């Protein structure tokens, strides 16, 4: 139906499917577009989706916590994740396809030769069957858990160093608590000066805290700076619609460069939608010119107008009473 239609179900691997799903707005099911987090409940939506929803009802669509537009904040991390994921989605899908083909080839190879691979594969399941399933007391499960952990192979040696959140240097995990105590008081950590604890010899510049945390927001800051390049148009003001006459509303819409046609309810809908579109555009790190935004508003109105003309004709439903019988 649509070539650029992407969906989490494109992935066979549940992990990739999960990532793809979690990077989508719960309202529109598209990848987050200008992700906004509600500070009242921490749920995240596209800017336009949540702004529209809040004009209908002032609550979080996911958990119904009372929320207003001022509860919204940009969630730049999500925006960055979405853009990385979108740029690499196709490669990951291709890789997944290749992996699947390779696996199938391997499987065929195994079934053709009566290799010992088969028996080695079936062994773990035998083991599972032997272990008592349901009738496990808590102490026995604890015992078995400790057993398995004792039997488990020693963990693969890996870099146990983590970033200190204060000075952003690599600190050994076992030493982290002591390091924090010193770091919080602004004292130097003597263990870090030992050449053995850091792989590279600490140069004077490396001793200075490398501000990783500050580095990343700076990319989004540089993106926000781009906003000034486009004309965002006049900021629309909220109106108490009950107090406005159609004449007054028309004047407001004209001043915003919008059409002034239609009855009062149409004018109100147009004004509300414009506020959502306008604010979502301001939230965006890549806003469009006000003229593009006006065009979008009109396109949308066009779509809705077609709907009202076609609106739920009973004949349509009657016809499908036949169709529905084929469903079961």
């Amino acid at each position, binding site marked *: 139906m649509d070539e650029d*239609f992407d969906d989490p179900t494109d992935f066979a691997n549940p992990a990739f499917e999960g990532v793809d799903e979690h990077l989508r707005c719960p309202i529109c099911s598209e990848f987050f577009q200008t992700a906004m987090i509600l500070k009242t409940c921490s749920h995240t939506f596209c800017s336009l989706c949540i702004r529209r*929803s809040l004009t209908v009802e002032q609550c979080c669509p*996911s958990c119904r916590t009372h929320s207003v537009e001022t509860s919204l904040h940009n969630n730049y991390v999500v925006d960055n994740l979405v853009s990385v994921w979108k740029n690499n989605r196709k490669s990951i899908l291709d890789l997944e396809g290749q992996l699947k083909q390779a696996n199938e080839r391997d499987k065929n190879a195994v079934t053709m030769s009566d290799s010992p691979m088969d028996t080695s594969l079936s062994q773990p399941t035998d083991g599972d069957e032997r272990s008592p399933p349901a009738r496990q007391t808590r102490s026995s499960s604890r015992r078995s858990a400790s057993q398995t952990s004792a039997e488990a192979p020693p963990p693969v040696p890996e870099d146990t160093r983590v970033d200190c959140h204060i000075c952003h240097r690599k600190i050994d995990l076992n030493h982290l608590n002591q390091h924090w105590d010193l770091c919080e008081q602004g004292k130097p950590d003597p263990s870090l000066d030992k050449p053995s604890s850091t792989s590279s010899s600490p140069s004077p510049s490396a001793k200075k805290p490398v501000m990783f945390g500050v580095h990343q927001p700076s990319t989004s800051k540089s993106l926000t700076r781009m906003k000034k390049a486009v004309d965002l148009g006049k900021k629309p003001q909220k109106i108490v619609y009950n107090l406005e006459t159609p004449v007054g509303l028309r004047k407001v819409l004209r001043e915003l460069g919008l059409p002034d046609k239609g009855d009062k309810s149409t004018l109100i809908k147009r004004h509300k939608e414009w506020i959502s579109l306008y604010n979502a555009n301001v939230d965006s790190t890549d806003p469009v010119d006000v003229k593009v935004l006006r065009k979008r508003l009109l396109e949308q109105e066009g779509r809705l107008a077609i*709907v009202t003309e076609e609106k739920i004709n009973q004949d349509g*439903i009657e016809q499908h009473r036949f169709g529905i019988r084929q469903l079961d």
Partner: protein
Amino acid sequence: MSTPSRRRLMRDFKRLQKDPPAGISGAPCPDNIMLWNAVIFGPAETPFEDGTFKLVLQFDETYPNKPPSVKFVSKMFHPNVYANGELCLDILQNRWSPTYDVAAILTSIQSLLHDPNPNSPANAEAANLYRENRKEYVRRVREIVETSWE
């Protein structure tokens, strides 16, 4: 023409196919993604057990900001279903959330069969029988269960 609503409905359908909730099925009409046919199987251990109840869901371009209109096509005898098959269900009216999808709507209707709400009756007779004469209520429901097979 692909619009946000249509794309959303296509994803709803993919999700419904991928993990179908127990006892419900639904699909858009082949020529119109805005019109869906659905079947809800009567939940076990309720008078509706073994029934196959058919519904139509009509969406428009305001979806998911506004709920679709949902209607039973099969004959229904339930405190919260009107004679014409329309439902009195909060999530399809004032408690709608744009995060709901087709699976969520159908699951809610299924649970409505399980737990009728006699305080907001759409069918006064069904509501009265449900409250005061459960035996007769069950008998009337079994009747429509049987007609649902036809």
